[in-house]
């Protein structure tokens, strides 16, 4: 008998038959993992399996390769806190959909931590959309498509302002000026976490991450970027416009 215990964040829950659920979670030490939850479709338990919820998991299977079954306990329910906020609700579904591109059973502790922080921050007062941008770039990096924002690719100074769409490397303002219409703008909040992002910076961040998600990550799995990203961005832009 193989088993492990871990904490996880619900990425999807699909009905299996009438009473059971196949649960897919991003776990701390076991990466993206799936398992059957017996009786998971019951009215009492259904709410635990909303996307983004944090669970304590105990996975068991006779053989390592089997789907296995989960015994679960609810730890935290971020989904309940965002039901009123359309942008946050869509963001929650989007980041969980995005996390499903991660390989199965390959530990991604950093991605898990980032998703845990992000799901707890959604809908709050802080600049949580900036965390969505960071999460997207984190997923890209964990899949081998990370951007190199450490120095200018053209040997310029530290005033980094662009990213090359071809290499994903940063370019300094001076070096990039002649090619500015071909380069992607690099928002300053991605260079230092203490810089508070403006809505324009976050917008530039989404353009940057969206470009590499489409051209690198989703192209590699022959899929388009999920529609829900577009819905989320639209809802966030409307919310930003209404509040300004």
């Amino acid at each position, binding site marked *: 008998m193989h088993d492990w215990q871990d904490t996880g964040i619900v990425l999807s829950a699909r009905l299996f038959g009438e009473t059971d659920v196949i649960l897919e979670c991003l776990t701390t030490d076991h990466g993206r993992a799936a398992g059957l939850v017996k009786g998971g479709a019951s009215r009492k338990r259904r709410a*635990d399996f*909303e996307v983004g919820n944090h669970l304590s998991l105990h996975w068991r299977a006779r053989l390592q390769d089997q789907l296995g079954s989960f015994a679960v306990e609810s730890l935290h*329910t971020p989904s*309940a806190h965002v039901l009123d906020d359309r942008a946050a609700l869509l963001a*929650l*579904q*989007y980041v969980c959909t995005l996390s499903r591109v991660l390989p199965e059973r390959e530990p991604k502790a950093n991605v898990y931590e980032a998703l845990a922080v992000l799901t707890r921050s959604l809908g709050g007062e802080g600049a949580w959309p900036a965390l969505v941008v960071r999460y997207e770039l984190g997923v890209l990096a964990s899949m081998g498509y990370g951007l190199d924002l450490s120095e200018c690719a053209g040997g310029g100074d530290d005033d980094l302002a662009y990213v090359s769409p071809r290499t994903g490397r940063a370019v300094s303002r001076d070096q990039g000026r002649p090619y500015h219409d071909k380069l992607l703008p690099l928002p300053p909040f991605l260079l230092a976490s203490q810089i508070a992002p403006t809505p324009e910076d976050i917008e530039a961040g989404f353009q940057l991450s969206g470009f590499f998600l489409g051209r690198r990550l989703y192209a590699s799995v022959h899929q388009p970027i*999920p*529609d*829900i990203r577009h819905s989320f961005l639209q809802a966030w832009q409307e919310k930003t416009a209404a509040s300004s």
Partner: protein
Amino acid sequence: MSYRPPSAAPGSSSATSQPQAMTDLVRLLSRLPGLGPRSARRAVLHLLKNQDSLMHPLMTALDQVAATVSKCERCGALDETSPCQICTAPNRDHSRICVVRDMGDLWALERAGAHKGGYHVLGGLLSALDGIGPDKLFIEPLLQRVSDVEEVILALPASVEGQTTAHYLGDRLRAAGVATITRLAYGAPVGGDLEFLDDGTLAIALKSRQAV
């Protein structure tokens, strides 16, 4: 496409002396919600034992439902007529429409007897995961019928998919000029003990608190 039973596995019921017609019926019944192969077999045996009192009336009823029940062209509810009885009832307040996910929810609200207006059955919820977009739901007919409606009540589940659908409908209905768009309250159920409520329900109940 006509139903074609799959070939029988060794040791399955059809490999025994059970007639093929019965095997087919058991297979079909076992696809119904709440029934598995064993309970379907029991149901078939029960039907065969009570042919006059149960099997023949059931056949007639099934025939009748299949021939007469269809989706209402206005609200999407199932009825023998289209527009349905709710849509044509003169004693209902048709300036208030309650939007529900499916017929089960409509029946639940009717049992409660708290809503005396019209309904609109969406036939599901938006789901990014399952690829269900607005075009797969009964949304356009709703937008076409709200021109003279005072209030639309979004009675959708307090789940991620339910509220995503509610937000989407809210935007579309606002653009269509509906004056009042409301949703059901979130929170503790009647008779619910706070101690046994999950933290999500408690949090949302606290958020939606009202002055006493």
